């Protein structure tokens, strides 16, 4: 373990690449001040980009989804370690996967979905794929295309799922929400809320048909190979951020939250198991 010459932060989320760069710039500046090296922010196109970057050592730290963390862990358990996660306003550290359909389709629950198409988001998304695929199959609805659903497709991401359901390309889909607030607003936070705010969908036209168990918020991970003091410094900056610079924390957390709290790999064991079970199917 030696000196580092630069620090590379990976950022992902449902926003414009440049917006993401901008909202995380304050974080990067803080790290740069503390470490005394240049900090660069990278915005890969999808979850996989962050995973490859962390595995290949070209990204040092990132806020990840639970499932993509699990994927990274399975590929190389030594690559990264989770250090912090987001704590919601109500103190919980989880969110939900929400299944929804168009109201006019008459679909009210998964029972009405026989022979219909079901849409997931990104294969590496926890709420957009991993958890619903595991929980829904466990509930007795096979996820094998053609078995119970006529087809199961990936739309590419949360935003695309919402559009696809709204357009009727798929009969139902899953996306994430914090589960707080009201359905007609698209909840307080989540992909639905962003779509509503953008004027893309009318929540009156959508119906919730399913909700998952609580899913742990994604971890902020740091590459294990980094010097310990670097890891500690960066972790501390983020852990104190809500207290010291709420504006910046809002950007990093991509929304309102209470705090960043410590986590360990144990929090995500169930997710890793879920991911492994999907592989072995």
């Amino acid at each position, binding site marked *: 373990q030696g000196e580092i010459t630069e620090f590379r932060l990976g950022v992902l989320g449902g926003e414009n690449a440049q917006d993401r760069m901008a909202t995380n710039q304050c974080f990067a500046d803080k790290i740069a001040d503390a470490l005394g090296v240049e900090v660069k922010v990278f915005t890969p196109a999808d979850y996989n980009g962050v995973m490859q970057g962390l595995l290949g050592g070209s990204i040092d730290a990132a806020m990840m989804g639970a499932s993509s963390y699990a994927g990274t862990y399975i590929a190389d358990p030594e690559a990264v370690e989770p250090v912090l996660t987001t704590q919601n306003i109500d103190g919980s550290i989880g969110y939900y996967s929400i299944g929804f359909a168009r109201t006019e389709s008459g679909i009210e629950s998964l029972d009405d979905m026989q022979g219909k198409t079901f849409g997931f988001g990104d294969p590496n998304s926890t709420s957009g794929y991993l958890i619903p695929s595991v929980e829904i199959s466990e509930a007795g609805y096979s996820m094998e295309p053609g078995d119970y659903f006529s087809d199961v497709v990936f739309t590419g991401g949360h935003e695309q799922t919402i559009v696809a359901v709204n357009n009727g390309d798929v009969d139902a889909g899953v996306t994430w929400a914090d589960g707080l607030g009201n359905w007609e607003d698209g909840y307080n936070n989540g992909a639905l809320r962003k779509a509503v705010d*953008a004027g893309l969908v009318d929540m*009156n036209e959508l119906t919730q048909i399913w909700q998952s168990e609580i899913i742990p918020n994604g971890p902020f991970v740091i590459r294990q190979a980094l010097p310990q003091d670097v890891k500690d410094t960066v972790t501390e900056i983020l852990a104190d951020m809500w207290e010291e610079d709420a504006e910046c924390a809002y950007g990093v957390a991509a929304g309102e939250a209470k705090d960043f709290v410590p986590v360990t790999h144990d929090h995500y064991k169930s997710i890793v198991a879920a991911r492994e079970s999907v592989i072995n199917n």
Partner: protein
Amino acid sequence: MTMLSASAPLSADDLKSRAEGMFRTKRLWSFGLPALVLAYLVYAFFAFDVPGLIDRARPENGAILVRDTYSYKTHVERDNRTGEITFAIEGERKGEYPEGTYPDWVSVDGDVTTVTLPKGHEVRYYPDHVEYDVPGYGTISAKSEGRGVEATYPDGPMPDFISAARNRVMVTTDAGRVTITRNRTEVFRYAMGWELFFFTLDSPYHGMAPGALLSRATSGEAGEIWDDFWHNEMWRHSDVAWAIVETVLMAFLGTFGAAIVALPLAFLAARNFTPLVVVRQLCRRIFDLCRGVDALIWTIVLARAFGPGPLTGSLAILLTDTGSFGKMFSEALENVDEKQIEGVRSTGARAVQRYRFGVIPQVTPVLLSQVLYFFESNTRSATVIGAITGGGIGLMLTQAMITQKDWEEVTYYIILIVLVVMLMDWLSGILRRRLISGGGEGGH
């Protein structure tokens, strides 16, 4: 004259029936070919499920998109719990009006806030309810309570511009849109143009006329004005410029790097320069591999080693184009004029000198024009590669499209990309003409 008697030994009737036969075959072809194509298109029509697609098509999404490209909307949002009203362009934090200011079509009179919409529409926020005057229809009044939204409408059947449910009422007219839920009341007001394109609301230069700006600029504020424009938080011109540069950079490094790598390899793959079959075949298979794998897959393969960024994209283009150039260059080398080489050889020149003077001057024009052509088309490909590897204008473009709300930015990027590609097309045309007809042997 002998014309009639000179006619063929075959009788005219024979010829007629033969001509008929010929036309039968021709007709078969002229029907058969289009019929085959048509049959294939019909197959594709169903294979692509076009009927279903037409069914699902959402022209109104198209309308949103089109409207967004030339107009913007201002959100007037009231938190029904706190009663706080925010004004934000496109509903974005960066577009929020500073505390205490609001657009001139809003008037605040004590507890009542009036939002004037075009065509005589008007929305009034009262402390406990909202009223919306729709000319020719009447006034809609809605009150949000803990249990839901309670709305009263003018008499008569419910018009289809109102979408009402227990918890949510939405009125969409061509003057704007009003949404009332338990928590929030929101008005969208549309206006033409790309608001804040030059300056954001917090800039002192926002809304200033060009003349006034110019006089400020000449009186020493040019730097600040440029700074406010260049670092506009909404449109991020500096980031966009960088992204464009990054995209062109990927194309440039990839194309010319590939040309440099491919040139020596092409000699090894050309029949007349490498008599060894093994070496030649090896080189050709390497070219096939590079080309066959395609830049898309190279991008993924390289992402592990180099991470996201323009370098990865350049290398992906470089690898694919090495394959294409290798093939094309070696074909050009196989077509060189042997006479020139022989002339140089007869003076007792060494092999390298023979290549330098007998071969290079002949092939440079061909190679150069191919390279420049690829440079232009790679500028376009680099957009796509950037979208996958995470770099350049391509990433911005795809991300802006995926979030499906920033269509004005999408339009902006598309215009920039089209301009840059056309610029490259034009530039490479000029360079091609100059380097090939005039300028001696060309530098590289």
